[in-house]
């Protein structure tokens, strides 16, 4: 140890060492199209650190049995790890009670669960569900489905030219018929960080329940569900460096208690008989069938990993990358940035004059650069900006300014080819 180490204040967070972080992600050392992989698609799904990959493998190698009903030690060990993961999620989002954490397949399923079991039962013809123009299809279609069945409608609040929610218009749209508000925290296309605290306050003032889609938020910024005081929050493990196949629904215990079950099956029952079946307590009431046991345990490992680095440190690193990347790619001739909100996280969405986003994506692929092209499951938002498609580079914990330089070089070359 050097002498300087001893005089460092003990409270200081460890320095953010992106090289050391990259070394934790085996896939980042691989190649794509014969070039070193430059992974800029974390908004679609993040890559996985060794801790998560090892946790998954270790469960199956050493701790695996079905949970909750086995009397033998192995099943109880698996059950304990599974329960521990739920407590890690509780701690991570600062929930009051572990029973407020429901495991689903993904954020999409969590939204469907709330739509079907919380909103739909009391929805009447003419009622309204307020969303925004910047929602992912996952936060539009489940509401449309229940609205259509009941003769209700889904109302989108407008987004401004820079890609911010028009909060005044949003407030005006909360009317006597509004039964539910469902808003994205961080837009997967624009990167806009919505003022969720204000949104929740507006909803509360009018007595309307709120669901916050945090699929693009939990990996980028600190989440405190008690401070935020929304009614429901959803996110996916696979965007939080965890495995695919696991999602989280956080809901206030009083709501979850009052809601009917989502699906029927094992684990969600208290007692089954042909004369009638009674439901298990929350959260088990919503977790019919054998869950993704290993995936849930690995989500716990992902949370440990993120917490070991610190979400604030991650946010700072990503903010630096975003500022650097915004400056760099705007030098590319003909490039138009979509979404320049004041509060923004980790996403650069753009179009390039003379090139279809798909053309850009295919050229960048040849350079080993993974970006996303298309409508990013946000067709209404693209329509609002007069686009069919766009190209999106998105950052995670492991990205570097070198990644952005590679992106910028390739974009310059693409601009040269297409213009």
């Amino acid at each position: 140890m050097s002498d300087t180490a001893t005089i460092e204040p003990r409270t200081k967070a460890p320095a953010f060492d992106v090289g050391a972080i990259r070394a934790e992600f085996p896939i980042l050392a691989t190649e794509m199209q014969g070039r070193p992989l430059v992974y800029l698609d974390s908004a679609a799904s993040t890559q996985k650190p060794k801790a998560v990959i090892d946790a998954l493998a270790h469960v199956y190698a050493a701790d695996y049995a079905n949970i909750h009903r086995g009397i033998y030690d192995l099943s109880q060990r698996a059950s304990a790890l599974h329960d521990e993961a739920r407590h890690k999620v509780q701690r991570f989002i600062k929930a009051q009670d572990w029973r407020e954490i429901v495991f689903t397949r993904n954020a999409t399923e969590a939204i469907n669960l709330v739509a079907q079991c919380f909103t739909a039962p009391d929805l009447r013809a003419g009622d309204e569900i307020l969303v925004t123009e910047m929602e992912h299809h996952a936060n539009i279609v489940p509401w449309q489905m229940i609205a259509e069945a009941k003769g209700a409608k889904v109302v989108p609040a407008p987004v401004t030219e820079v890609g911010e929610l028009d909060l005044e218009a949003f407030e005006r749209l909360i009317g006597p018929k509004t039964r539910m508000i469902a808003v994205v925290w961080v837009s997967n296309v624009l990167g806009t960080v919505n003022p969720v605290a204000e949104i929740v306050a507006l909803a509360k003032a009018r007595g309307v329940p709120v669901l916050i889609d945090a699929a693009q938020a939990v990996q980028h910024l600190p989440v405190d569900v008690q401070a935020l005081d929304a009614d429901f929050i959803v996110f996916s493990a696979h965007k939080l460096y965890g495995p695919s196949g696991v999602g989280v629904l956080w809901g206030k215990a009083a709501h979850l208690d009052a809601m009917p079950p989502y699906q029927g099956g094992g684990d969600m029952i208290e007692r089954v008989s042909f004369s009638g079946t009674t439901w298990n307590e929350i959260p088990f009431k919503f977790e019919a069938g054998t869950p993704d046991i290993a995936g849930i345990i690995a989500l716990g490992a992902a949370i440990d990993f993120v917490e070991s680095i610190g979400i604030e440190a991650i946010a700072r690193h990503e903010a630096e990358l975003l500022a650097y990347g915004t400056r760099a790619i705007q030098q590319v001739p003909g490039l138009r940035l979509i979404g320049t909100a004041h509060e923004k996280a980790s996403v650069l969405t753009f179009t390039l004059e003379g090139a279809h986003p798909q053309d850009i994506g295919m050229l960048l692929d040849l350079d080993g650069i993974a970006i996303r092209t298309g409508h990013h499951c946000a067709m209404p938002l693209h329509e609002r900006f007069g686009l069919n498609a766009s190209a999106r580079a998105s950052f995670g914990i492991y990205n570097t300014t070198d990644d952005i330089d590679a992106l910028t070089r390739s974009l310059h070359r693409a601009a040269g080819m297409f213009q």
Partner: protein
Amino acid sequence: MSREADEIAGAEAEIEEDFALFDDVRDKIEYIIDLGRDLESLPDELKTEGNRVRGCQSQVWLVAELDPATRRMALRADSDAVIVKGLISLVLRLYGGRTPEAITASTPAVFERVGLGKMLTPGRANGLYSMIERVRQLAQAYATAETTA
């Protein structure tokens, strides 16, 4: 082999010769971009929902017309993405002006041979697979209509 099948084989050979000039994928893609630029655009009135080929990330439109006298299928197609338009140009070179029977009897193996095989995987967002499928379906429909007429 019928004369029509020979024509497709001839077009395949020409495409192979053209691609033999490039060893690098990037050069091949640049060539495809050039092909895309050179391909005549479809008039807007033909870019209809009915003519749209699904399964492509970009928009692709394909129009086929059978000449009853010659029994040959004229093909026109377009896309809003240049690389896709270049791939379309290759598809038109292979299948444009052939008989439905010759089209259904052939396989698009030439794309494999020129190193574009990866682009042919179903589900790839580039749409080459969907495009060829659509051409084959149209050819099949014309062929069936002929035999049942």
